[in-house]
């Protein structure tokens, strides 16, 4: 069993002597501003789709002994694990190779921190007048690691050695000077050396911002105030997090979610979460989950922790400064050799989209129910599960200019939001764990990659039904266009294609499953020439092959590739939904008439979709009758 240590007793109220509330607020805000500024530098200079569009980056400040004091960025998953990296750096290098002013160290080992080898962190000490006063770090997801599969998610890997170069603190900057030996080694190990180099430079630039701003703060407010604020930040967050935790109903909830495929076989894995809330402590116990897999769908401890943290931070502690203080009420219990606590050297490259990814769903599920049982202000925070098909298909091949490309598609991050207790979820609006994610413009995709999209839109009937429905999910379909080789490869690492995991709450239905479909040898191009743009798979000839959620596919010549991603889960019984709301959705073609009749019991007629009141009453009565007929 691995745990994050016991939550323990709360620290007292304001303890830090000599630090007034006003200096604390000012220094805290300036640190946050520095983190945002560093993020802007990363986004503006990076060449990685994942950094620029998904905003998969994190910057943070640490105490000199490696405690996380403040973090921010576009993704919540890594927030915790970099602190473990900083402590590794201190423990292993402080008295050996040394940690000096102007040094920066590069890490990418998922067994030290991060989720998988593409997560690359650069850690830098902050010095003031010759003395180390803290650390800062910047992390991004790099587009290639030199693994057996382009892009670094490796369905066929069985050991972490096949998943790309893993760095354990190489000194990438020494005394402010860039170390070309490290750059050259790294560039030689990956498929996209120029982009990876730019990403390393971006993180160095980001750290330089963090260092400079910290030094300015010390200069202005004094070293003691800076250090005291950093220490106090952790206690401050802990106090707020405990107070909020205390307001949640005491009790125990259980949720089970599944992985339907291990990358090679449709083997089923089960992730069981028992959440116990008592007083100001929350225990997330994964005892009962499946043992680790022989393939790369395992999550490391860091990934599982990061995923749990992301949901708690995003849904419960969103207005509290993120640092290790908000983790103190939390106890995470992970059995050994478990699918979400894999032992070295298990392959873990799909650990985030797979094992870790479904943790995201399980935590949301129990949290929604916990909140629903709590006081009114917390009850309003309950919602259906947010859609996110955990897909991240990685496309690669030769583009129309004859250059090699790797494109991790992130459109599925625009899932439907879960329904809330008093309103519908927002359609194609995004996940909790990657709140800043952007999806690219089709015009940019087609300019860069050899594809032509037939559609990208919200999918009808994709939202989980309920008194309030989830937000709609989406779908797209493309064919090859101007490909220089006539094919591209797709590496799939999805989940939630067989089990419906974007669950509803309180009688609301889950959203549909996600799908990957390959249409073999389609007539899409011929139809286009005739003036017809196919708008559904039915309109295309060619065999429709349902692809497994994980594995490989090649799209060649006249094939099309279709992807549908999750809407959000619904809230409450759909029979309690106002017929006029259903009608509006019908008019906007978000809900089909058939779905409206079968699920909502709402019958409309004519071009205006006028509600047939009598037929609606009858349909709803009939559904209720059928429900109770079960008892017989």
């Amino acid at each position, binding site marked *: 069993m691995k745990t994050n240590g016991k939550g323990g007793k709360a620290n007292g109220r*304001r303890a830090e002597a000599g630090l*007034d*509330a*006003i200096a*604390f*607020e*000012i220094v805290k805000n*300036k640190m946050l*501003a520095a983190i*945002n*500024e560093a993020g802007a*530098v990363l986004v*503006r*200079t*990076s*060449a990685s789709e994942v950094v*620029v569009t998904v905003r998969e980056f994190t910057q943070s400040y640490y105490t000199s002994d490696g405690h996380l004091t403040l973090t921010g960025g576009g993704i919540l998953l890594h927030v915790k694990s970099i602190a473990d990296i900083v402590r590794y750096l201190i423990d292993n290098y402080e008295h050996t190779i040394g940690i000096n002013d102007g040094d920066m160290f590069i890490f990418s080992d998922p067994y030290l921190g991060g989720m998988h080898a593409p997560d690359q962190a650069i850690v830098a000490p902050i010095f003031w007048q010759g003395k180390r006063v803290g650390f800062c770090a910047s992390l991004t997801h790099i587009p290639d690691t030199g693994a057996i599969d382009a892009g670094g998610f490796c369905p066929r890997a069985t050991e972490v050695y096949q998943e790309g170069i893993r760095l354990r603190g190489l000194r990438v900057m020494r005394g402010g000077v860039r170390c070309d030996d490290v750059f050259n080694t790294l560039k030689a190990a990956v498929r996209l050396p120029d982009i990876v180099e*730019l990403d390393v*430079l971006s993180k*160095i*630039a980001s750290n330089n911002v963090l260092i400079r701003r910290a030094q300015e703060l010390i200069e202005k407010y004094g070293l003691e105030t800076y250090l005291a604020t950093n220490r106090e930040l952790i206690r*401050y967050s802990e*106090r*707020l997090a405990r*107070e909020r935790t205390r307001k949640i109903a005491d009790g125990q909830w259980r949720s089970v979610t599944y992985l339907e495929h291990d990358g090679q076989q449709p083997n089923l894995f089960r992730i069981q979460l028992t959440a116990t809330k008592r007083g100001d402590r929350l225990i997330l116990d994964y005892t009962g989950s499946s043992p680790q897999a022989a393939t790369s769908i395992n999550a490391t401890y860091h990934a599982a922790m990061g995923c749990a943290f992301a949901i708690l931070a*995003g849904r419960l502690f*969103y*207005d*509290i400064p993120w640092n290790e203080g908000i983790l103190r009420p939390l106890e995470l219990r992970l059995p050994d050799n478990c699918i979400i606590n894999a032992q070295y050297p298990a392959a873990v490259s799909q650990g985030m989209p797979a094992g870790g990814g479904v943790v995201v769903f399980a935590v949301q599920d129990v949290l929604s129910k916990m909140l629903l049982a709590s006081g009114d202000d917390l009850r309003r*925070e309950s919602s259906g599960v947010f859609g996110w098909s955990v897909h991240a298909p990685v496309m690669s091949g030769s583009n129309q200019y004859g250059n090699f490309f790797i494109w991790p598609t992130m459109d599925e991050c*625009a899932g439907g939001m879960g329904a*809330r207790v008093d309103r519908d979820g927002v359609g*194609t*609006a*995004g996940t909790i764990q990657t709140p*800043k994610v*952007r*999806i690219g*413009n*089709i*015009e*940019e995709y*087609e*300019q860069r990659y050899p594809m*032509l*999209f037939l*559609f*990208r*839109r*919200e999918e009808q009937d994709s939202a989980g039904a309920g008194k309030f429905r989830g937000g709609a999910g989406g779908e797209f379909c493309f064919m090859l*266009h*101007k490909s220089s080789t006539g094919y591209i490869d797709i590496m799939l690492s999805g989940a939630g294609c067989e089990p419906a995991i974007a669950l509803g709450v309180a009688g609301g239905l889950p959203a549909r499953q996600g799908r990957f479909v390959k249409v073999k040898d389609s007539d899409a191009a011929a139809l*286009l020439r005739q*003036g*017809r*743009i196919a*708008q559904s798979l039915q309109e295309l000839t060619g065999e429709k092959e349902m692809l497994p959620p994980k594995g490989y596919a090649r799209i060649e010549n006249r094939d099309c590739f279709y992807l549908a991603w999750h809407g959000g889960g619904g809230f409450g019984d759909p029979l309690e939904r106002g017929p006029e709301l259903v009608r509006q959705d019908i*008019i*906007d073609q*978000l809900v089909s008439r058939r779905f409206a009749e079968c699920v909502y019991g709402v019958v409309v007629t004519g071009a205006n979709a006028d509600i047939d009141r009598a037929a609606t009453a009858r349909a709803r009565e009939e559904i209720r009758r059928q429900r109770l007929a079960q008892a017989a």
Partner: protein
Amino acid sequence: MGYIIGIDVGGTFTDFVVSHPSKKLFHGKVPSTPRDESEGVLAAIQQIAQRERKELAALLRETDIIILGTTVVTNAMLEFKGAKTGMITTRGFRDVVELRCNYKESLFDLKLPPPYPIVPRRYRVGIAERVDYTGRIVTPLDAEEARQAARRFKSLGVESIAVCFLFSYVNPAHELRVRDILHEEYPEAAVSLSHEVLPQVREFERFSTTMINAYVSPHLKKYLNHLTQMFSERGFPGELLVMQSNGGMMRADFAAERGVELALSGPSGGVIATAHLGKLSGHRNLIAMDMGGTSYDVCVVKDAVPELSSKYWLSRHRVGLPMIDIHTIGAGGGSIAWVDKGGGLRVGPRSAGAEPGPACYGLGGVEPTVTDADVVLGYIDPNYFLGGTIKLDAELAKRAIAEKVAKPLGITLVEAASGIFRIVNNNMNNAIRYVSVMRGRDPRDFALMAFGGAGPVHAGAQMKDLKIKSVLVPKTAPTFSALGAILSDFKSSRVQSFHMRSTENKVADLNQVFKRMYEGAFSLLDKSRDLLVRIDVRRYIDLRYIRQVHEVTVELPLGNEPLTAAGLSRMFEAFHDQHEARYGFKRPGYPVEIINLRLDLVGARVPTDLPRVARNGGSPDDARKGTRAAYFDELKDYAETPVYDGSRMAPGIQIRGPAIVEEPQTTIILLPGQTMELDPYQTYIVSAS
């Protein structure tokens, strides 16, 4: 040469500024008439006529131009009262404005509803047509489907139609054809084509901007036509001009088709006035800060030109056109101070607004606000707030701060008030850092131009924190936007996507595109040539390293000369250097790509001279009206501080802080050691100690 009249319609007042070659510049205000803006505009003109002791018609006959800042577009978007609008897109892409690239305004506000759909899904129709990224037609336009869409919109009473096709900025043939079809089938409908509104790659930005244009333009056009007619019926022979969001102005008839370009018509004038007055006072680099009751707006003026940005949100809908880059945060006199559950003191973003307003208003507010802190600290005289028009209750201010801040934190009243003052300053300083530091600029290279009722109270302290050397406070601030209107030039901005890698030789194509952009922009200025003394061409190129997603904009040498290959290489060199200056590194020798070309055509008018008052010197005692106790953090105590009457200040008089200068609409606080004098253009210049 006759009158030049600048009018700015605000929420409460319609301001005017009038210049005439042989008369003294003057300004004034009349109440705004939100239901029909034109009534207030007419009232303003009538008041000008009265002041000039002329009949309205006589005044108008002697007027060359009227320049208008309008809120018609802003209000249409704030209140969602635009035209009933439909959208025709490439089939399969009608949800572009719904997916909105997944932008979120508030990352963790999971309760935030979707933006108000100004064109709901039922009014978005996809039709068969497809162009690829090279401009090649993959699927021909289905004209019959376009006709059906037109008929359907007509039957539904849709008044305005946005036509948005993929890659129309490369090949606009289908959009143009659909316009013809719409004119045939439904000639009454207004039509906006995406490649005309914003001929730029990235369909979300282009579709959204076009949709807003379609939504706001019909009402704007009606309004401007009405004004034009109203003026011409009354004998106005000149031109009606409108302030655009890009800081320039445009003929009303052209502007009427481009509603989206008027979204920041009002604030635009204020920023132009900032640039102009700053320049007169010897400051070409400025940060304009407008601190009102609930919000704090900042905008950068670099080398006397307001900075523009193409990433604006208008009521949560994206505008991709270059507009003055106003950054707004929730901080103002009404911002509420509160102690959070962790024991931290916070200020804002919640505001007490005008009602109940700060506790000291005595209108029932019990939450302590920034204004309450300013009163407790002695910065604002409770008997002379807004020139004495509102009486404040200092006791209520004290009580609110004591109860809600000092007691919970276990600190004294004055510590609490000074804490609120410092925290709100810090929040505002972060907004300034956002527009400066975050964009690779050092705020120390800028002067602050402070306006808005609360701005000058705080600017001195901000100046100190940010190590800024000068703060400028214009006496003309109350009618600043109208002043900016009469100071502004014609400006036509063009953007066109153009893709070229540094390894390619497409300089001839590039010149061709610039030429077309120039011609397009020039056609809008051509009719107004009589008013112009000079036309400047400014060209820019958006560049990035290959695979980067964000660009750096590099300016070409002034003028319209075709670029040579050598000139282009110099641009690439300039890009490397600017990248390094902004982000701390460059990659010389690494390939670069061009994404967009930008062109601004600026038609300069005969400059309006602002009156200059000679420095007569004099003693501060001439303006001194008394003293009061004010708290200064530097002294850690209250000090009996001299108070000066702004209306008795004359150019040349120098004041040394600590001091308080009261103007009818604002109060300027000088910290110990800071000095201030009024310059010949009626701008106070505060200098750091």
